[in-house]
């Protein structure tokens, strides 16, 4: 026998990530609660730009996904990886850099998003310098993880590590591909892709961020912590292997199910649907494997809050992954998309799966690394019930609201006209559900506070075992490699594993994206579609800055209920100059793709008054007021570089147009200001509206929307 090596596990880093998880969890959920209240009480926007819905909605999603769940992932991985490898983390310095770097990125997000610095891509809103920082920190994480794996004292790579590796590789690829941006200034950039292609890349990213940030790492964690907490091995290891490979293979294809009925080419939509349906199999394989691990331990589940959290978390995973494929069926999607149904769906996943898994890990880990006992199992049980009740009070009203509003949008009377042509009626009908949802969120959050107290007391009763002593025999390299099967080799070779995962996830991405990018006929051009004027371009950037895209879609689906309400359905060729695309994913307000056309036409003054105080123009509106747009001077210092950047990206502004851009901008602004004057609009102090305030640019943009295509027919099919 060989000698036994003594070493120690780093528990301090686990503790640090754990504290960050709890703190950011509370912050992220509080912001979510504020946003939820704003959706029935616009005064909760607090009357300043920084806390309006459009800006804090991305703050909430980023905080919850990358700060709360992100830190929970790292906490869980840093503890389990060391034990599964029987080795300390590769480098304490890298661990520290990873921890502090990640927290710094979160702080940068918490500052820049309220300031309106956003790329507008959902779950990838952070501007390019932060994107670069994320890349660096991610590399540090991967380096530290691989270093540990390569130095391991355990021959085999347990399946949890496979999930960690796939997470690392795929998130890296997703982040890189979705971050192709042309910087204009330190905190402003345009996406390289435009229109349909940008949409495809974004939802390939968005969908797989859910898959490889919220799912695969947590499945890896499930395969470690659930057996640990139940004190028995996973139900079927074979199933876990099948689960792993099929899940990562299939997931990557399913992104286009976010773009059903949009102008994305049909074959790509169909691929998305087909693979989404197939996803049920591996997802449920994983859920069943998790639940059956507890077979024979059900008596313990009754007393042990930690196991309860696991059971409901894994069940929520099963619900969400059954619902997801159903939502990808075109006929279900037609009703659910753009409504609160989707909000319910993601929260079953986020609150149920990610939230409860995280709580279970925290309750299990804290006593372990502090060498003590959980302060109160009773409080943990209370938390469990608050969390479960909170989810129910959140999700049920949202399902109801989504269904109801979806039906109202489509409701035709016997006379053949829409029953609710005024969008606001459909909004008003769901406000009670929005109130209930915020109560559900409050209950859930209360549970988190109970947990924070319980963990605090636990920690106080023990002492951190910063370096936990361990011993194991080193790995020998001279074993008989000769007659091994190929699958055994995979189990031992982490680098091979990484390369294989990479290949597997690249196949799906490539088949979907390469044709959309290479085959020109996939995006038929429309001659009448022209680049935005400089003023409209600035208005569009304000639309992005204010996060209007969080409430308004810009894509009309080919249904009669939508063409009646909004006008002609959207064509791929209309978006060719849209860097980035702004199709949106939620219709809290009406679609704006055709806002400027005759059918929906409103005077400049209407838009002016509406933006200053929406409820004055539309009674009961829950859209936030934007009074600052009428006093802020439009910043035109970057207009010239924006025009140049757009030209670099392929938008056909004539040669040297940038020299004329500012005078064109001024002319158009003066025209709108003159209109406002003619229509009787005055500032509060009775002075005339100046042509150089922000609202002028935004009105120019809104009045432009959809007008190209109403001028002429599509050329190329």
């Amino acid at each position, binding site marked *: 026998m060989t000698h036994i090596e003594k070493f120690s596990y780093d528990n301090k880093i686990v503790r640090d990530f754990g504290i960050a998880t709890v703190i950011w969890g509370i912050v992220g959920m509080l912001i979510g609660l504020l946003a939820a209240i704003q959706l029935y009480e616009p005064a909760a926007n607090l009357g300043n730009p920084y806390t309006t819905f459009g800006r804090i909605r991305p703050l909430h999603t980023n905080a919850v996904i990358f700060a709360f769940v992100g830190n929970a992932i790292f906490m869980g991985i840093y503890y389990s990886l060391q034990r599964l490898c029987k080795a300390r983390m590769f480098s304490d310095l890298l661990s520290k850099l990873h921890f502090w770097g990640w927290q710094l990125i979160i702080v940068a997000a918490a500052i820049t998003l309220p300031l309106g610095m956003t790329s507008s891509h959902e779950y990838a809103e952070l501007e390019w310098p932060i994107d670069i920082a994320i890349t660096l920190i991610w590399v540090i994480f991967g380096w530290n993880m691989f270093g540990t794996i390569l130095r391991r004292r355990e021959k085999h790579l347990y399946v949890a590590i496979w999930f960690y590796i796939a997470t690392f590789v795929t998130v890296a690829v997703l982040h890189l591909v979705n971050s192709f941006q042309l910087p204009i200034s330190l905190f402003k950039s345009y996406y390289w892709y435009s229109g349909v292609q940008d949409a495809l890349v974004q939802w390939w990213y968005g969908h797989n961020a859910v898959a490889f940030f919220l799912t695969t790492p947590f499945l890896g964690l499930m395969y*470690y912590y659930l057996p*640990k907490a139940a004190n028995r091995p996973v139900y079927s*290891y074979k199933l876990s292997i099948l689960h792993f490979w099929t899940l990562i*293979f299939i997931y990557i294809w399913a992104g286009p199910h976010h773009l059903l009925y949009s102008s994305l080419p*049909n074959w790509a939509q169909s691929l998305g649907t087909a693979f989404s349906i197939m996803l049920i199999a591996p997802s449920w394989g994983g859920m069943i494997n998790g639940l059956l691990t507890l077979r024979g331990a059900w008596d313990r589940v009754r007393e042990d809050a930690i196991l309860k959290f696991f059971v409901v978390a894994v069940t929520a995973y099963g619900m969400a992954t059954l619902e997801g494929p159903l939502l990808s069926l075109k006929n279900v999607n037609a009703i659910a998309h753009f409504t609160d149904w989707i909000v319910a769906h993601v929260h079953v996943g986020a609150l149920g799966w990610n939230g409860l898994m995280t709580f279970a890990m925290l309750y299990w880990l804290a006593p372990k690394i502090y060498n003590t006992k959980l302060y109160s199992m009773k409080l943990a049980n209370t938390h469990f019930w608050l969390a479960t009740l909170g989810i129910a009070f959140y999700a049920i009203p949202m399902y109801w609201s989504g269904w109801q509003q979806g039906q109202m949008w489509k409701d035709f009377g016997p006379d053949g006209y829409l029953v609710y042509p005024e969008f606001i009626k459909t909004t008003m009908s769901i406000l009670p559900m929005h109130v209930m949802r915020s109560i559900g969120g409050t209950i859930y959050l209360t549970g988190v506070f109970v947990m924070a107290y319980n963990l605090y007391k636990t920690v106080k009763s023990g002492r951190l075992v910063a370096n936990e002593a361990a011993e194991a025999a080193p790995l020998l390299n001279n074993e008989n490699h000769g007659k091994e099967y190929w699958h*055994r080799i995979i*189990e031992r070779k982490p680098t091979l594993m990484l390369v294989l995962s990479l290949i597997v996830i690249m196949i799906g991405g490539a088949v979907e994206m390469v044709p959309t990018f290479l085959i020109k006929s996939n995006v038929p051009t429309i001659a009448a579609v022209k680049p935005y004027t400089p003023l409209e371009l600035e208005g569009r950037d304000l639309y992005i800055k204010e996060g209007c895209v969080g409430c308004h879609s810009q894509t009309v689906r080919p249904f009669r209920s939508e063409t009646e309400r909004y006008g002609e359905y959207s064509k791929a060729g209309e978006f060719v100059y849209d860097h980035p695309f702004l199709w949106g994913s939620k219709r809290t307000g009406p679609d704006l793709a055709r806002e400027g056309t005759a059918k929906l036409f409103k005077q400049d003054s209407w838009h002016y008054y509406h933006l200053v105080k929406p409820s004055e123009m539309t009674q009961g509106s829950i859209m936030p007021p934007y009074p600052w747009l009428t006093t802020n001077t439009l910043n035109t210092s970057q207009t010239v570089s924006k025009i140049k950047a757009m030209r670099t990206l392929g938008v056909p502004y004539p040669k040297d147009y940038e020299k004329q851009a500012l005078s064109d901008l001024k002319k158009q602004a003066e025209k709108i200001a003159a209109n406002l004057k003619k229509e009787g609009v005055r500032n509060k102090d009775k002075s005339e509206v100046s042509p150089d305030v922000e609202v002028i640019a935004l009105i120019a943009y809104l009045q432009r929307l959809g007008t190209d295509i109403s001028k002429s027919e599509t050329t190329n099919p």
Partner: protein
Amino acid sequence: MFKQFISGVEGMDQYLIFSMIVFLVFFAGVLIYVVRMTKEEIDILSNIPLNDKETDSHE
């Protein structure tokens, strides 16, 4: 139900067929991999998390 993903694919069905074939080949590979694992291997592998010699479980 299947019709709805095939319809509207016009001429682009090669993508769907190609991707399904790729998946089936891949799936067959993984299946063979799993079937060929022996009971002993499975036991060793699935017990890795439980073998880290600590004072176990939290009761």
